[in-house]
């Protein structure tokens, strides 16, 4: 029983982080119809922004906000400088459909290299603001710790903020309208280019949170070559697909579901299925419900 609860908690916490990455992927997908594989690199760079900020100030939470701002600016710059030119130039031709995907892979490599040149290849440590020591019930210690609680709280708050922005404000309406029908949005007077940049900025900020939380959920070590960031990208993508790629709520459900499934497979079947399990989940989703768990056939809801 205790093992079961612990497994569930492991799954929910890592799932919350996958969910953030999925959210970042979905935000870009909705605004630009591109899966941005550079997102892992952006999250990495933003996490380093946070690390850098921690060298000057003492508060992790302020560093988190700085990382979010840095991630948002980086992401917006990528959209303005890079994606606009890219999409303008690749409207036709054999690889028009896949060119943006390929280009974002190139971008991923460039960001990673630049991060290595700036901060070096060795591990740096980001100190967690809260204890990672698990809560105790009697003589048993749960996997759940104050830091993990904070991670789930941050994800929840972020999600609430997003849903208020998206559902209740005119900026949210602009974002959704631009995502679903850029032409109608323009006819309604929305400056779609700016809104798209805003969508990327939101995504960059979300990725920054995912990166910093990923690091502090672990031992706090961070390096440009970290495999975890590549895996974060793939888990985020799979979570987004489970959620149907369009829905913000869906990506959260997808992330948590993926986290829990993976945790149970590793605990009760074998640890060595680590790389295979998410892939199998992805294939199953694509075959059984290609529109995602929350996606509706034909229609897409925000």
């Amino acid at each position, binding site marked *: 029983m205790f093992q079961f609860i612990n497994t569930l908690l492991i799954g929910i916490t890592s799932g919350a982080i996958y969910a953030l990455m999925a959210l970042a992927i979905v935000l870009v997908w909705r605004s630009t119809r591109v899966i941005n594989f550079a997102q892992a690199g952006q999250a990495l760079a933003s996490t380093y922004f946070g690390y850098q900020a921690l060298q000057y100030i003492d508060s992790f939470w302020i560093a988190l906000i700085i990382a979010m701002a840095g991630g948002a600016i980086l992401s917006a710059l990528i959209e303005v400088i890079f994606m606009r030119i890219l999409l303008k130039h690749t409207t036709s031709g054999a*690889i028009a459909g896949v060119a943006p*995907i390929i280009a974002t892979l190139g*971008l991923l490599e460039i960001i990673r*290299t630049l991060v290595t040149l700036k901060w070096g290849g060795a591990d740096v440590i980001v100190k967690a603001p809260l204890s990672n020591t698990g809560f105790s019930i009697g003589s048993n210690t749960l996997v759940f710790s104050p830091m993990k609680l904070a991670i789930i709280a941050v994800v929840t708050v972020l999600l609430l903020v997003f849903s208020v922005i998206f559902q209740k404000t005119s900026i949210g309406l602009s974002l959704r309208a631009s995502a679903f029908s850029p032409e109608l949005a323009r006819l309604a007077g929305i400056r779609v280019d700016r809104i798209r940049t805003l969508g990327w900025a939101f995504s960059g900020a979300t990725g920054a949170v995912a990166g910093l939380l990923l690091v502090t959920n672990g031992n706090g070590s961070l390096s440009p070559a970290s495999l975890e960031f590549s895996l974060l990208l793939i888990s985020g993508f*799979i979570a987004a*697909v489970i959620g149907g790629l369009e829905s913000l709520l869906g990506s959260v459900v997808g992330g948590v579901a993926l986290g829990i499934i993976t945790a149970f497979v590793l605990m009760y079947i074998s640890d060595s299925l680590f790389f295979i399990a998410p892939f199998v989940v992805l*294939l199953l989703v694509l075959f059984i419900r290609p529109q995602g768990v929350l996606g509706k056939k034909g229609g897409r809801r925000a």
Partner: protein
Amino acid sequence: MHKLSNKARIAIFIVLGFVIFLISNRVDELRVYQGATVAVYVVGIASIILLTGYSGQVSLGQGALLGVGGYAAALARLHWGVSVPVSFAIAILAAAAAGALLGVAAARLSGPYLAGTTLALAVGLPSIANQFTFLGGEQGLFYDVGFPPASLGEDFTQYKWFFWIAALATLLAIFWLQNVMRSRYGRTWKAIRGSDIAAELAGINIARVKILAFTLSAGVAGLAGALLAMTIGTVSPSAFPLALSFSLLTGAVLSGVTTLGGVMIGAVTLVAIPEIVHSVVDRIGASEAVATNLPSLIVSALLIVTVIFVPNGPVEQMRTKSKKVKSL
């Protein structure tokens, strides 16, 4: 369309083969080894061109298919003791079978889904080797091609032998690929690439054609995998990393995915850039960190510039330009 008669094409390939043969006798052993690596890349890149350029599908996990080919060849040679050509054939068949499975999934998926799925495949598949002891785990299996025939003389190096095998396999593969692309299937693929709907209206079974494209492409990738296994003498999960998939895709874009004509460009760039960069960096004495990171920075930048400014590749660009000039 430029159409060359089959006879003329065969002649060109024979001449090309002869030129390669002459080169192999003139350059030193390191160049011969790099030549073999270029050949591996050429075949790997061609497999992506076949898939992406001719059927509009994208695979970010081609490295995994190379892995399937490499392991199949190594296992066949290790356990059944088959000859090298047979092990190549097995590599092609095994990878093609894997490609067919992937193709069934791919036929249901559009661009971004397919990209993500193949990416996940590239991460997940190599780790399978650790699950089954007969795959040799992390340290992998030997793939022994054997020594060059004694009749070639004492001085004949192993790498020249590898290069000859790789070059011959590459020439045959490219020749065959050209035939495929000039065939009815090739035209069908092009139709699909242009527009799924138009192709469907023309009565083409898109799913079947896409699966076929994936299968053939995977078969070619399998050959590349076997050649790669030959040049490094082993197969292991770390020999088929995500970076390999990215490199091949980069090479394909640099070559231009619409035509096989430029397939050398990407392959040579991938092999030459790190070396050129290193010799330049050594001369100007930049720091160690810059030296190790510069090549990937340059290759990635090249990739992006190509995607933006010459998305169809340099060869297609040249061709369109010369067409324009002619039409004036």
